[in-house]
């Protein structure tokens, strides 16, 4: 486990800052290329976590939405709005929601993540959560707006918005887990500096 942790020497950080390389974690070292299989496995795992019988347990975030935001930020050309839309349809059927409600929410989420992806990656992971929070909130508010428009929402629907906060708090963890396969083991070999 220790082998995989990226370790930054002070000199490296300074050099990165002076050369204008983003200070955010993903750019502090050169990552290995991502495996598409891993992307789809993690998205399926997010879906599976959402399908677990959580019932009406409070504070359970939307894991699939987090996964979609992550891959849209990191690999916007591999995971796009089409995937978000299709996953949204699956969630609609599972939740017994209106057909297209989650699809709309995830499409907006995906667009926001793609639009912001160049900016988000410049920030350290903790600050990235502050960008993720409004994205998740917009997605939840979109489905709330749909429900209010169609007229089937109970009066205390806004309580669920806390889940977006929990999701944003989980962002550093998501970041750490989903980037783990791309990090290089630290090489002790002096002839290979990377």
């Amino acid at each position, binding site marked *: 486990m220790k082998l995989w942790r990226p370790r930054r020497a002070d000199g490296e950080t300074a050099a990165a800052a002076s050369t204008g390389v983003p200070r955010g974690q993903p*750019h502090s070292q050169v990552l290995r*290329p*991502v495996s598409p299989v891993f992307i789809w496995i993690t998205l399926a795992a997010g*879906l*599976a976590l*959402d*399908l*677990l*019988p*959580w*019932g*009406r347990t409070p504070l*359970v975030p939307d894991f699939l939405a987090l996964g979609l935001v992550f891959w849209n930020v*990191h*690999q*916007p*050309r*591999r995971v*796009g*709005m*089409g995937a*978000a*839309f299709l996953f*949204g*349809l*699956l969630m609609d*059927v*599972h*939740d*017994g*929601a*209106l*057909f*297209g*409600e989650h*699809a*709309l929410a995830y*499409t*907006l989420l995906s*667009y926001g993540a*793609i*639009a912001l992806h*160049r900016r988000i*990656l410049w920030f350290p992971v903790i600050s990235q959560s502050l960008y993720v929070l409004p994205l998740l909130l917009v997605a939840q508010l979109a*489905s*709330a707006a*749909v*429900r209010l428009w*169609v007229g*089937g*929402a*109970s*009066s*205390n*629907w806004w*309580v*669920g918005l806390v889940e977006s906060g929990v999701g944003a708090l989980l962002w550093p963890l998501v970041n750490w887990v989903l980037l783990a396969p791309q990090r290089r083991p630290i090489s002790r070999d002096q002839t290979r500096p990377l």
Partner: protein
Amino acid sequence: MEYGPPPLFNQGVSARARLAFFSFLAVLLIVIDARVNALDTIRIGVGVMLYPLQRALLWPRDALVSTARYLNTVGSLTRENERLREGAAEQAAQVLQDQQLRQENNRLRQLQGLRERTKAKTLTVQVLYEPRDRFTHKLVIDRGSSDGVVAGNPVIDEQGVVGQVTRVFPMVSEVTVLTERDQSIPAEVVRNGLRCVAFGGSEPGTLELRFLAANADVSSGDTIVTSGLDGLYPPGLPVGTIARVERDVKDQFARVIVTPAGGVNTNGVLAVLQVTAAPLAAPPREDTRDDRPGRRSSHR
């Protein structure tokens, strides 16, 4: 990938165009689903595909529950057994009496020439999960159209009415609970037979009796049961108890809040009443008056 070619090279359709396309598609689906109900085949198809995954993911919880049950000591089981036996003995007298009363009732009804109350077939179902939807309260049960569940069937538990089947898949179905805003159920007050309609309340988890006059004879503590007027819910099923009555001088109607009787324990066993959902015939028009009142239409 972050260091890909600059945007003047081909990146496919622009993000905004894709956003426009997919959100238009989503809104279209929402409108069709909300207004026309034409998407049920697609929904059932996706549901059937998703079903094995859903069942597989229920397994960890079921395993936990069964392990916990297994670890229950013999002592607690014996105690529970004793309690249940006592309960059964207590209820035996009622059950015997009930049989006699039912026969008597049938005879009286035959004498009166009334239609006999059909006994609805019940189907015992298990609640699989509650969808994580914050906007509506639904339950998903483990029987579907392959077991003869039909949308509209009432669902009860041992305490009273839980709700109504609102959507049916081949293997599972969705039950909307009574306290949902759009649900309504014809009911009557047991104490004086006052007819009313219970709607899902504005406060979560409650029911509301609407359109009762401000001076209506209701008080907190009254039991509400189904009246059977809609031909769907069999009469006499407990709906709830009146929690409080607010009579405002300015208002023409009383505000009656009802605590639901059933559906408190949402992870247990429920029963679907397989009534033939024959809606009552429309009241006969003046010119073609039918001399058989209360006739039920057999079409639909």
